[in-house]
């Protein structure tokens, strides 16, 4: 025990295991304040830890059931005629290729639209135009995917796809275009950030050498921002792969699907396969391994988007570090 000079000190000493600390306690201030600090710090740390816990919980939940699926399924069923989980046909090709087709169509739409919008807003538009148009692009980003799904089904499919080709009402092309529209604001936002991160001095140097605005944009600004643009496209693909509602509503194939490579026909993606299974007749009960297959597909999807996001994130940070 130290020397309890006053009540205040003895409280402080109690708080610190009763060791003699009188001199430092004087400097450290009111022990009640210190204890409160410790409590608050502990609470805040717990909150931060909880966010990590969410990540861990996702991975564990997915791996647990996915493991049950992998160990119990017959491997021939994973490479069979189609994706009919309720009848124990789990052809992974069908839904992975469907996902790739739709994400591909989406990027064909989102790349020119997103990059064009970003380049125009960042490089050509007057500040006034920018102030008006940019929030409108942001509104597009705030539209829920279920609304775009409805739009893809009732407008894009009949007015765009079926006008150009003979296609089923439910087709992968309309879903792909819908997903592309959904991804466009994301591509535009990340690209615009990258373009704005290019220092004005680079542009001024280019003008100083006699280059015009167009030359400056194409030969100086875009090359300088290329890693940000790559990041925008990678994150766009990741978002397109994970998009659910547009595909579930516009691509059809609610029950299951045969392997389908024609984008004008209904098709199934990994995400839509999951919703179809979850809402079909009576929840996920289904036969045999249908419930477990949900988690297997989820794990596959999680892994694909995680890899893309990590790569995209690398590119984004490269932009930030360079300038």
């Amino acid at each position, binding site marked *: 025990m130290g020397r309890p000079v006053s009540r205040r000190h003895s409280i402080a000493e109690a708080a610190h295991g009763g060791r003699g600390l009188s001199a430092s306690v004087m400097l450290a201030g009111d022990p009640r304040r210190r204890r409160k600090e410790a409590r608050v710090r502990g609470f805040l740390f717990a909150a931060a830890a909880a966010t990590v816990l969410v990540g861990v919980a996702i991975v564990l939940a997915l791996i647990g059931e996915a493991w049950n699926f992998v160990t119990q399924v017959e491997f021939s069923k994973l490479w069979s005629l189609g994706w009919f989980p309720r009848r124990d046909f789990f052809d992974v090709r069908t839904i992975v290729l469907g996902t790739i087709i739709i994400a591909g169509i989406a990027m064909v739409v989102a790349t020119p639209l997103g990059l064009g919008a970003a380049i125009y807003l960042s490089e050509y538009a007057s500040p006034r135009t920018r102030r008006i148009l940019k929030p409108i692009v942001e509104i597009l980003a705030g539209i829920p995917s279920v609304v775009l799904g409805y739009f893809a089904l009732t407008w894009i499919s009949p007015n765009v796809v079926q006008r150009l080709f003979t296609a089923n009402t439910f087709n992968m092309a309309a879903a792909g275009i819908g997903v592309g529209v959904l991804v466009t604001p994301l591509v535009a936002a990340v690209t615009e950030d990258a373009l704005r991160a290019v220092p004005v001095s680079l542009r001024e140097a280019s003008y100083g050498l006699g280059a015009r605005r167009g030359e400056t944009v194409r030969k100086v600004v875009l090359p300088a921002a290329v890693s940000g643009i790559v990041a925008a496209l990678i994150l766009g693909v990741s978002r397109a792969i994970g998009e659910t509602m547009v595909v579930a509503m516009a691509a059809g194939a609610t029950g299951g699907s045969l392997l389908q490579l024609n984008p004008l026909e209904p098709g199934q993606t990994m995400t839509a396969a999951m919703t179809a299974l*979850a809402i079909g007749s009576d929840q996920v009960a289904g036969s045999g391994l249908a419930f477990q297959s949900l988690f297997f597909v989820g794990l596959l999807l999680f892994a694909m988007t995680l890899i893309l996001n990590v790569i995209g994130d690398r590119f984004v940070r490269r932009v930030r570090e360079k300038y």
Partner: protein
Amino acid sequence: MTADTTTPTRIAVAAKLQGRRVGWGESAFQLATLIGLLLSLGVLVALLADIVAGAWSVVTTRGADFVSTPISLSADTAGVLNGIIGSVLLTIVVAVVAIPLGIAAAVYLEEYAADTRPTRFIQTNVRNLAGVPSIVYGLLGLGVIVRLVTALGAGGSANGRNIIAGGLTLAVLVLPIVVITTSEALRAVPAGIREAAYGVGATQWEVTRHQVLPAALPAILTGTVLTLARAFGETAPLLLVGAATGFFATGGQGLMEQLSGTYTALPVVVYSWSRQPDGAFRDELAPAAILVLLVLLLAANAAAIIIRNRSERKW
């Protein structure tokens, strides 16, 4: 090489200095980017026009009645009341759970944690969580949260697939977004404010509580409102956590029954109506429900913009 300033030379030099006229390629590129922008905006216009045109008959004939009547099997009397109640309750659960937790986590990461390997790991983890597809959060809800809610005795008549589980699933979904937007808001508060408060003897929590958080509040609020709007419009995870896609959503009764019973949400109503074989549901009621959804979301966005503009501060 005398000072040969004959007229032809002078004309040639002057022409060089003026430059060629802007080439075809130059303006074509600018035009292409403009077309990209206009197409994105055009899609928005087409979408809104399509929705409003579809919703028109319901809006004009039913008016406010559509918002205040419950879901029904008959297209003439079906309304979106259950959906609105469900969505509002879900959003409240999200707000109560995700916002305090997310803000606290962000305060820890930005104000307290040293820039160490574990901190960076948490930050990377949060960024990656924000990019996880929403349907995967639905699986988390189905595999973990529903069971947890049931185990805690809040499963009710819906076997755990109720608003509590749905709200917690959405809360987990938006948590990383809350952390990221709050972190950005905190980072924008200049270090000078913190140093001044430390200088007069404040503790770290006092600095955070009385200086940093109030300064960052408008930006945090803006982010929060947008996040809640995001949760309000989310559909896919709710389908996995049992939002009714049929017409058997409950409603009415006591609050506890509503939280623990079967439920539906506005975006889920849109989804299930657009799947109905009855044309009136798909072509008239679904766009009307979308219109209600968009109006509510637009109001939230407008509120966020107003908060941002009211409190815009330059340091």
